Structure formats: C-alpha cells, structure tokens
C-alpha cells in the first residue's frame, strides 16, 4: 500500500525533506494515541503526547540512524515523552492520583450488580490499577506489528525477560479483575 517504508521516510526527514514526517504521522498517530490512551485513559493528554512525540522526532531527526526498527525508535521516544510529561507535572498528578483513588473507591461502592458484570469496564479499571511498568509491557505487547525483540529494546531488557514480564503482568491483571468481581 505504501511505496516507502517507515525507515526510508524517516531518513528522508533526516536529510531535510521534512514534509515526509506528515506521512509518518498519518501512518502511526492512531497506534501512538492508543498506546498513550491505554496508559493514562485521558483523551486530551494522549493527544498532546502524540503531538509531542512527533515534534521531538522532528527536533532530534539528526539522531535517527536507521539501524533498528522505526517503530522501536518511535515508541522509545514516546516512552521518554511520557516520562518527561509526568515528571514535569508530578505534583499535579499526585494530587490527581489521590483524587482518582478516592473516586474509584467511591465509584466501586456505588456500582450496581449489573455494572459489576461489565467485563470490559472492569478490565479497563483493572488495567489502570496495574503497576505502571506492568501496564506498559502489556500495552506494548498488544502491538503485534512489533516483534518482542523490539519491545525488549524499548524496555531495555532481554527478549526473554520482556516476555516473562508480559506474562506476569497479564496474570496480575487477571487477579485484579477477579478481586474486583468478588468485591
């Protein structure tokens, strides 16, 4: 469908053909948005972060070597952008987090029996309760177009370790959802 690979397009961006980044954006914006949304469940912040990733790719285009996979490079950038965003707004999020805990507790008490049976909603809540690192490995594992060796590279660990982490994260997610179903 696309005459040029992601890698070829990014190398063109690097050499000064900046408008090619528009094509990369169109190809990957939804995938990146999905990553951020699954991590923070916030549309507006996720949209800002997607823009930040591409602006950063533009700014640091000279560092792109084209040696590994473009997707791995893009998600590594996404991870850094996300980290910087939360570091910068740490205090705000700590306040938000306590509010979220409060809201969730309150929400749970009010949940009707019927709502409790809504598997998808429970799973979404369960995912948000999962430790950041585990949530991240699971969300990345969902992207089948990425090999596990690339996911491992993004996470900075061995391929085997990344797979074990993903397995354990899934197990923990199941336990959290089970507890929520009972409670």
């Amino acid at each position, binding site marked *: 469908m696309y005459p040029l690979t992601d890698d070829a397009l990014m190398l063109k961006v690097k050499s000064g053909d*900046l408008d090619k980044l528009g094509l990369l954006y169109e190809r990957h914006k939804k995938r990146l948005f999905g990553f951020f949304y699954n991590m923070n469940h916030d549309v507006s912040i996720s949209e800002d972060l997607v823009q930040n990733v591409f602006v950063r790719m533009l700014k640091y285009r000279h560092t792109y070597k084209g040696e590994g996979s473009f997707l791995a490079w893009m998600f590594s950038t996404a991870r850094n952008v996300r980290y910087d965003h939360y570091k910068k707004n740490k205090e705000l999020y700590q306040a938000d987090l306590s509010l979220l805990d409060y809201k969730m507790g309150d929400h749970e008490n009010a949940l009707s029996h019927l709502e409790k049976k809504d598997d998808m909603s429970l799973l979404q809540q369960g995912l948000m309760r999962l430790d950041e690192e585990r949530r991240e490995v699971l969300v990345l594992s969902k992207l089948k177009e990425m090999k596990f060796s690339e996911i491992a590279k993004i996470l900075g660990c061995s391929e085997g370790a990344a797979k074990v982490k993903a397995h354990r994260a899934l197990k923990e997610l199941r336990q959290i959802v089970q507890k929520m179903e009972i409670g």
Partner: protein
Amino acid sequence: MKKETFEIRLIEYLRGTLPANERKELESFLEKDVAARKQLEELAKVWEDFEQLEVPEPSPEMDQGFFQALDAEIIRSNKKRTSGSQWVNELLGRIFKPQLVYGVLILGLGILGGYLLNFGGSEAATPAQTVDTSDTQELREKLVLTLLEQSSANQRLQGVSEANKIVKVDERVINALLKTLNNDPNVNVRLAAIESLSNYVNYPLVRQGIIQSIPNQESPIIQVTLANLMLALEEKGSIESFKKLLEKEELDTTVKKKIESTIASII
C-alpha cells in the same frame, strides 16, 4: 517444558506470534499438563478482552496542532537554508549569471531603503514616506512575481516569503501564489504558498482559488494541509472539491479518512 519456557512462550502464543515449531511443542505440553492448560485458558480470556478494549478516535485538533508545528518547522528550516552559506553561493551565482530584472529590482529596493534611512527625519518625511512605501510595495510585488517564475525552488520559496511581507496584496500576487499552489513541482513551495495564502483568506478570490485547487492536488501532505485549513475556516464551499478528490482511485487511504472526517466536521 520448564516453567520459565512456558512463561516465555505463553504471551507469544496468545498474541499469535509464536513460531509454528514452538507452538506445536507448547500445545503438546499443554495436552499433558492440566494445570498449565487451565492457566492458559484463564489468561486467554483476559487477553482476548484486553485486545478488544476500545480506544476512542483522536480529534481533528490533534492533526491540526501537529501540521501547524510541522509547517512552522518547514518554513523555519527553509529560511535557515536560504540565509546561510547557500545564500552567499546564490548571490555569487547571480553575479556571474546576472538576471537583469531581478538585479534591478533588488537595486531599486536598496536605493529606496537608503533614501528612507537618510532622509527619514526631515520635515518632508511624511508625504515622501507615503509615496515611497507604495513604491516599495510595488517593487516588492514585482520582486515576488519575478522570484516565483525562477527555476530554483529556493528562489521560489523566497518569492513566497517576500509575498508575506506585502501589507496589501493585489490580484496579480494572489494569482501568482495560486498558480504556484496549482503548478509548482516542489511540495515545499506549494506548502509555503498555502501558508502565505492563508493570510488572505478574507479575499473571496483567495478562498475560491484554494477551493478550486483542491481536486488538482496529488501530494498527501498538501491534501491534508488543505483539509486542515478548510476545517479551520469551516468553509462549506470546499465540500464539493473534497468530494471530487475522494473520487480519485489513487488517493492515500489515510488521507481519504482525513478528508471524510473533514467533510463530516464542516457539514
């Protein structure tokens, strides 16, 4: 099979990315190990639900924000390119391969600028300045028209950049910019022309010209930029042109979706 091997292979098995030979090994292991099979079934259900978790569509504002940032960087980068050593090379090139009209126009602008600097403080300054400003304007317009006809993409970009300095454009400049948008072979020049024309969207001639150019555009970035512009202007008159563009078989699928969402938003 060791516990760790099972743990390593399970996630790839659920993703459907486990190589065939390893999948067979895992399946034969699962046939013998009831506890492992039970664990797999439980996790498969969670994985299936997790894969189906819905993600909303990002809004058109996200596209708009990104393309604005990209456009700004493209223009900044083009300016940088023409203002550095390349500028010196171009100037030298011009000296050795003089283009008479262009040279005379630059000289004219310089003389007028110098005249303004030297006599700007005199009593007669006010009426003189009025005349000079309109003269400078006219010269700049001629400069724009000349630069837009050059064979070098950088000079044409410079022409678009000069057009941005004109306070009140006339029909000739607008038509030249529209001609650039429709016919320039360089996508960066066409993008810069859109940027420049977007300053004059209050002129019906500009709006109509942009709308008419939509079905003729073949570059995805231009198509998306025009879609963003029309969306920002909420220009209902552009819908027919976008529909014509949608009829083109070679249209990129992502651009197609963008245009469809633009039409839906404008309606």
